[in-house]
């Protein structure tokens, strides 16, 4: 890391007041890199270590040395009656060792002048205190001045790396979107059809097709709410095929830029009374299936709630076709209406 890196240098007074408080010129904006931005965006409580070792003032130094050794840390906060009263670091222990006083209590060697940071502050304030004080760890206090964690430079580095990784992942997902498909391929009406074969009684793979469909829709640029509605509807339809169909069936998804049509078809047994199966709580599932948590009699009710249009055609002995349709809000998928 270079000496001018935001992680090691002392921020200017202006920076400390916060970049958000001043107007940023275009030139400034270009100069601010993502890491620098993150040091203002990330809060201390997001990166600090919550599970920390603490020492009491009466504890002999030798015991603390053992705590430090076992946990590979170089200092601990000293707490009395749940109040932070000092910090004991390896350096303090070295001082005691020089005088051969490892049996002395913590209170005798601890540093009483404590520099703390607030959990709700940006990590940049911790970075500044690290570089001002040359300390390796700082206690974190909450709004009520209670000790809630410790922060080290390592925590900050890790926090920034995790945030960068998240950025990268989001960027990757964005680039992977297949939404340009509808724009790249020119036709009077483009339809993408996905087919899934669903086996009867195959509970092991139950929900696989729905999960693939939801992911496909997100990749195609559907908004999360639309993808979720489709996911729930198609899951219930998929499970219905698994529970009720004689020989399984086909789950089909047709994506157009303005609407999504999902359907299931099977070749039996067929539904005797469609009115009845639409009643909430009505189910013909076996006891065994119910034990797994299916057969609540809510499947079709859920589907109806999630889609804009639902249609069931069924003939006993022949089979059932369930069609579900969701109209995509404009500016979704590809934002262009085809018809």
């Amino acid at each position, binding site marked *: 890391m270079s000496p001018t890196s935001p992680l090691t240098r002392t921020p200017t007074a202006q920076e400390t007041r916060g970049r958000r408080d001043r107007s940023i010129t275009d030139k400034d904006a270009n100069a601010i890199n993502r890491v620098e931005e993150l040091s203002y965006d990330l809060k201390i409580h*997001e990166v600090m270590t*919550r599970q920390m070792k603490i020492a009491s003032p009466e504890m002999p130094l030798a015991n603390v040395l053992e705590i430090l050794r076992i946990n590979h840390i170089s200092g601990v906060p000293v707490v009395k009656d749940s109040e932070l009263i000092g910090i004991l670091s390896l350096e303090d222990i070295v001082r005691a060792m020089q005088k051969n006083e490892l049996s002395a209590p913590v209170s005798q060697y601890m540093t009483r002048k404590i520099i703390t940071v607030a959990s709700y502050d940006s990590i940049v304030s911790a970075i500044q205190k690290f570089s001002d004080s040359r300390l390796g760890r700082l206690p974190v206090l909450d709004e009520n001045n209670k000790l809630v964690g410790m922060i080290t430079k390592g925590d900050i580095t890790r926090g920034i790396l*995790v945030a960068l990784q998240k950025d990268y992942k989001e960027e990757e997902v964005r680039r992977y979107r297949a939404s340009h498909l509808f724009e790249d391929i020119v036709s009077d009406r483009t339809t993408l059809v996905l087919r899934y074969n669903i086996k009867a009684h195959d*509970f*092991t793979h*139950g*929900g*696989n097709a*729905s*999960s693939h469909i*939801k992911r496909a829709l997100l990749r195609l640029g559907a908004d999360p709410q639309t993808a*979720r509605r489709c*996911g*729930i509807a198609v*899951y*219930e339809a998929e*499970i219905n095929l698994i529970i009720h169909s004689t020989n399984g069936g086909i789950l089909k998804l047709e994506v157009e830029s303005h609407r999504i049509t999902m359907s299931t078809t099977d070749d039996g047994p067929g539904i005797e009374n469609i009115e009845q199966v639409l009643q909430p709580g009505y189910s013909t599932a076996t006891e065994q299936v119910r034990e*797994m*948590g*299916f057969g*609540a*009699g*809510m*499947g079709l*009710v*859920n589907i109806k*709630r999630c889609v804009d249009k639902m249609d069931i055609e069924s003939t006993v002995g022949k089979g059932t076709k369930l069609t579900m349709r969701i109209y995509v809000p404009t500016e979704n998928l590809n934002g262009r209406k085809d018809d």
Partner: protein
Amino acid sequence: MNLQQIIDQLNLTVLTETRDFTTIQPEGGYTSDLLSCVMAGAKSNYLWITLQAHLNIVAVAALLEIAAIIITEDAQPDATAIAKANEQGVILLSTPKPTYEIDGKLWEMGIQIQK
């Protein structure tokens, strides 16, 4: 209240791969052993408390983007279910306590339903 604090306070066993649970902040919870009810009632980033431990709870949780499933009364998902949960990023937690007790404690801890 983040998921790590919930795991600590309720003494839950993490069945799936550990990761940074402090970044997960559940926004509510839903309790049912009927999958379709969960489909209708649970929102994304909710905790789902259930006795069910078979493979299909993973699919439901993944679709709904559930924050974590708390499986009660020591019901044990099998290895396939745990592998599937890891693959889909679903967090499975387990407790010997009954559902009622877990619900009560979560409510007390402030995991309530936003009206």
